[in-house]
């Protein structure tokens, strides 16, 4: 599995490919983003209703299913499982 790592400016600083069975590397940048996202997730998701002209909490939109930052060829780079 390929893992892309970035600096705070968003520049790619490393790409690490891990063999089957390894957990993904926990890059400090990824950990920081995760913490920010966790804080953000605690906040209620507010939505402005044009009809009532009121702001009210709503359910969060679903997160995108595609993993961001992976190179286009990541799917072809998937190692085969050993039998």
């Amino acid at each position, binding site marked *: 599995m390929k893992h892309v790592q970035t600096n705070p400016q968003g520049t790619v600083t490393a790409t690490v490919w891990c063999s089957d069975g390894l957990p993904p590397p926990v890059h400090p940048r990824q950990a920081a983003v995760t913490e920010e996202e966790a804080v953000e997730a605690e906040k209620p998701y507010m939505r402005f209703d044009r009809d009532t002209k009121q702001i009210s909490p709503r359910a969060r939109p679903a997160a995108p299913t595609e993993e961001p930052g992976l190179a286009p060829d990541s799917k072809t780079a*998937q190692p085969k499982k050993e039998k």
Partner: protein
Amino acid sequence: MSRRANFDGVLNHLGLIKSIQTYEITIASGTKEKTQTLTTAVNKTYAYAYKLGADRCNVAGYANDKYLSGVELTDGSTITVRTHANTAADVTCVVQVVEWHKWAVKDVQHGTLTIVNGQSSATAALSRALNINRSAVIYNGSTCSSTTQNRDHSAASIAWSSAGANITTTRTGTTNDLTVYYCAIEWRAGVVKSVQVASIAFSGNTQTATATISAVTTSKTMLFWGGCKNNAFQEDMTGAELTSSTQITATGGRVVTNNTRSCIVTAVEFKSKWVKSLQSDATNIAAGNETADATITAVNLGRTLIHPCGYWTTNAFSTVDHPTIYPTSTTNIRADRDHTSAFMSPTIPWRALEFFR
């Protein structure tokens, strides 16, 4: 005891390494090729050559990329070292030939890949696709048609691509023909615990760059050098070290504002039962000195991989600061550069992994 357990017991007794030989090879001034006959013939299918550092030269200001060398295991009894053109001074490199038992390695693929003038990369199909879960690609130097020093055109990195079906080499620049020498080794199941390939890019005003990897046991993990892409100058060459269980750090010789540097390192963690010891260092040759020694706990040189992982050096004076390393005894590893420049101070990181057998 099951037949499988009995078979494993036999393998444990026989070990992984059949032979390890280290040679210092000099291309004489006025020539561009040198062959070295191996003391002990090897089966090329299960053996690789690993260039221990770069090219030494005792002439200050020997700044010309056409004298860089590439190394190949030509057949089971011969190593060949080549430069692009007849050299104007002796050029010396060091090569370790590692032959594995056939039950340790599926095979080793040896080859060259040429990036032609005008291009920044080249790709070719391997003769057999690698199982990338237990393979490493080794950069073994290069030859270049350049008649000047332009390390952005003459330095390259190499790795597998297309899920192990292809081999790809890339450089920063596009000028002159550049031929990269490589070996691709695939170990058998039961030898390797994990493989991680890190492509590490420098950015901004930095002298170092890091990649975070999934945790490894550092005392069982070897780094295999996949080369580097570079800026124009010699002091921008890079080397890499395993600086913690989760981090590989790449270092260049200086802070560079406009970074195009990157390097490729494969971290291979061997299964614990095979590894007797692992020692590492980044040996610095001080300005004014020709060599530097690193004392190690005694190892059996017949089953110890000694692999450097790039190098870096200070100052842009010339290209004479290409260091090599080699063991001088079971307790000493020497970094060497064949001259005593007071202007430059190269550092060569290395790891020495000793197998039980």
